[in-house]
């Protein structure tokens, strides 16, 4: 029995041990100058480790719950894990850091945390893995020690994150008090029998923590600052990966443990979703800084994802997240390959590099939800879910916010193409990021021709 547990977690075990070895390697060779000598090898080794873990997970066919039902590794979780690791791989590819090797390791550590988070079946396991990833994130956000913005970002993230964790723990203790168990599946069983008043209260506090991690309204305040302050590839990592793990867990909780309390959480989630859409759409209107703008756009996208959850249309959420994932990869690989920071730096892009300019314009059209690009289908599915749940007014708000959202995406396009600039030097692009960018924009453009795999992917994930 015990041996079997280890077999199930084999890939994770490999990841954990490999990261420790890399740390040892770093300490061994990195303790004397020049410190930067290790950056490239460790990054390459991290990528290799991630790729190997991916391969191991893809190959592993042993499913089961381990360690007293604390973690469950079944098909769904495995797909989420693969998704998380792909995200980490993308972040590592995009990483253009030249001074500290530790960042690659922190990305791997947090990947370990997120894998555990998505697999957790028990409040304690959930909390510990959540903190593992969160601590890595705080450090990553503050990684540019000399920059005021980066330290501010790390500190803000840490303090607000700590408060969210506090709420989470409080919620967990209330739920424990109500049910006498920390196990998610026990909550499901017990909540069907009888629900003490503070079961709902605990659930609400629990959601506070999760919504914070998803950067959803009303716990979104940290997002623009953290996105702005952190180095861009770290921002890309924050935007890409944690959402997957948290959504995976959120889905599991809502569809099992808390499903019988749907009357209580549905209005809460709808409020959070609508609020996120509004904040995301209105907040980005006046932004000049690209990263802040995309932070708000992330909040808006999270609103759409949450609306899918709130209407119990799980596949909608995963579908939207998959498209969001590709769009985020495209956005950040574009930003990283040219190093743009402000919207007006993009002026004349359409002239100096028309091919990339048009590709970026298509990406923005896709984010604005203009058909036939992929982003439209995500929004369509969310609207469909809202209409299906008879929430006509919510659907109307979603429609209006997506129009407002269009304004700022189009503003970027306008800056790129419509403004006359004298002569701008054609920006130098980093090849790897540009390939990633072209690949993901290609996906968004040609999605309409053969969308079935993504629909199927979301469908498979939503069947638990």
């Amino acid at each position, binding site marked *: 029995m015990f041996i079997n547990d280890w077999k199930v977690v084999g890939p994770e075990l490999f990841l954990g041990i490999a990261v420790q070895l890399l740390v040892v390697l770093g300490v061994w060779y990195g303790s004397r100058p020049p410190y930067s000598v290790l950056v490239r090898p460790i990054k390459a080794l991290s990528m290799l480790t991630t790729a190997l873990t991916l391969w191991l997970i893809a190959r592993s066919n042993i499913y089961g719950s381990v360690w007293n039902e604390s973690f469950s590794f079944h098909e769904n979780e495995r797909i989420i894990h693969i998704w998380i690791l792909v995200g980490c791989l993308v972040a590592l590819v995009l990483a253009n850091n030249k001074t500290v090797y530790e960042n690659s390791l922190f990305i791997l550590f947090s990947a370990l945390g997120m894998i555990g988070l998505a697999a957790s079946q028990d409040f304690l396991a959930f909390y510990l893995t959540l903190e593992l990833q969160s601590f890595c994130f705080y450090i990553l956000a503050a990684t540019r020690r000399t920059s005021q913005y980066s330290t501010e970002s790390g500190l803000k993230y840490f303090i607000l994150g700590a408060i969210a964790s506090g709420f989470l723990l409080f919620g967990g203790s209330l739920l424990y008090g109500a049910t006498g168990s920390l196990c998610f599946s026990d909550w499901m069983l017990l909540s069907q029998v009888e629900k003490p008043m503070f079961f709902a209260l605990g659930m609400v506090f629990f959601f506070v923590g999760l919504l914070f991690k998803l950067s959803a309204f009303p716990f979104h305040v940290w997002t623009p600052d953290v996105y702005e302050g952190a180095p861009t590839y770290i921002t890309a990592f924050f935007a890409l990966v944690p959402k997957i793990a948290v959504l995976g867990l959120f889905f599991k909780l809502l569809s099992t443990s808390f499903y019988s309390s749907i009357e209580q959480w549905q209005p809460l989630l709808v409020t959070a979703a609508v609020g996120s859409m509004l904040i995301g759409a209105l907040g980005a209107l006046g932004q000049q800084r690209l990263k802040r703008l995309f932070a708000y756009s992330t909040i808006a996208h999270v609103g759409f994802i949450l609306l899918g959850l709130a209407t119990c249309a799980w596949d909608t959420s995963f579908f939207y997240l998959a498209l969001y994932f590709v769009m985020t990869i495209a956005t950040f690989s574009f930003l990283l390959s040219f190093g743009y920071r402000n919207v007006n730096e993009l002026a004349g892009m359409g002239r100096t590099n028309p091919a990339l300019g048009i590709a970026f314009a298509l990406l923005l059209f896709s984010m604005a939800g203009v058909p036939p690009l992929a982003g439209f289908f995500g929004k369509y599915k969310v609207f469909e879910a809202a209409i299906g749940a008879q929430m006509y007014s919510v*659907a109307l708000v979603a429609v209006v916010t997506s129009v407002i959202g269009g304004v700022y995406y189009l503003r970027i396009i306008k800056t790129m193409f*419509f403004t006359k600039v004298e002569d701008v030097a054609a920006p130098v692009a980093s090849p790897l990021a540009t390939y990633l960018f072209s690949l993901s924009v290609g996906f968004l453009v040609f999605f309409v021709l053969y969308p079935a795999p993504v629909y199927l992917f979301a469908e498979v994930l939503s069947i638990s």
Partner: protein
Amino acid sequence: MLSNLIVLPWLGILVLAFVPSRNTDLIRKIGAGTAALCFVLSLQLWVLFDNQAVGFQFVEVKNWMFPVYFGIDGISLFFVLLTTFLIFLCIVATWESIQTHVKAYMMAFLVMGSFLVCVFTVLDLLFFYIFFESVLIPMFLMIGIWGSRARKGRAAYLFFFYTLLGSLFMLLAILTIAFETGTTDYQVLLTTTWSESRQIFLWVAFFASFAVKVPMVPFHIWLPEAHVEAPTAGSVMLAGVLLKLGTYGFIRFSIPLFPEASAYFTPFMFTMSIVAIVYTSLTTLRQGDLKKIIAYSSVAHMGFVTLGLFTGNVVGLEGAMMIMLSHGWVSSALFLCVGVLYDRYHTRLVKYYQGLTQAMPLFAIVFTFFSMANLGFPGTSSFAGEFMSLAGAFEANVTVAILAAIGTVLGAAYSVWLCNRVLFGPLQTEVLSGYSDLVRREAAVFAPLIFMTLWMGIYPEVFLQPIHLSILYLCA
């Protein structure tokens, strides 16, 4: 057949992608060649079209997530032809006036052509929406990149957001339909009936989208802006085809899918049409920009179209179809005329032009001809359309017909006055120096338009035959 017509422009784009952008002449030739090929293909549709068959022809199924049908009937046949015809003409007409980003320009045109053919042929509500919206992307870029003045950003925005906001309501309606019937297939939906209250709700949502596109009067603000700022070819496409998307939507979806709601809203539509006709005709009189004059007169003509569409009788509906087609070449030709002037003098203000007859006789003839066509002169295509539309309105409601007929008088007023100001009087040599009449390429562009206008004016039966059965089916 249809899929060739849709795929061909994309093949052209693929070829264009491999041509170096310095080689502008080759790029233009490839673009024009692809467009010409599309036009020939669509002519083939007309030749093979069976006038005696009820329902859709050349039907094709594409397996998307669900089967999606493409097909044409009498209503959509001429829109497809109009699209391919105008795309080709536009590329030829702006052969020299577009000098920047030629490759992207050609690509935008071909993309737009393909999407427009899709809009007119697809028999699925969701995909109608998708293609209806996707036309925004090339048009937005066209106004913004090749537009003329500083206000083009604003114009592109207005164009984009008016349409987007309007059509998202249509999207919600489509979702409601999809949710309640489980399909968005047009042919299936034709057989479903809705309760009257539900019909009214859906009709209004569709109206929000189509009224912006037509445009009907309170929603028309974007049109003059977009027309003024767009490049000549953009204006031609906008007036020639894009405006018809709205009226096509009415005749294809609103009327057959929600017949009771359409009957319920007929007085409303009549009122809106009369307001559009009279108000915009009066507005046209006060404009000083050549393109704005034609833009506002387009709104007035579209008023005649919506009037005809909701008369509910065959004559009125066929009249509406005739006006749409006729407006397709007449207003396009007028925009091309303005383009001819703009290419030479880079201004569109009426006050700088005077007495052009003396220096540009050929141009004067063409301009006068299309102005006359625009006011609905007997013997031109507009006359056929407006007469039928008014006759239909007369049958439906005499008062409405009389009020709408005022529009024809006002139309004559602004058209003749415009001709008078631009063409006659002494030459303004201190402002404009150096004149050249139409060159051979420009004359060649106008020739087919003149031919079509006269043909449809003198013998409209050729155009009515394919339309006839579809309209009859709609009214029954």
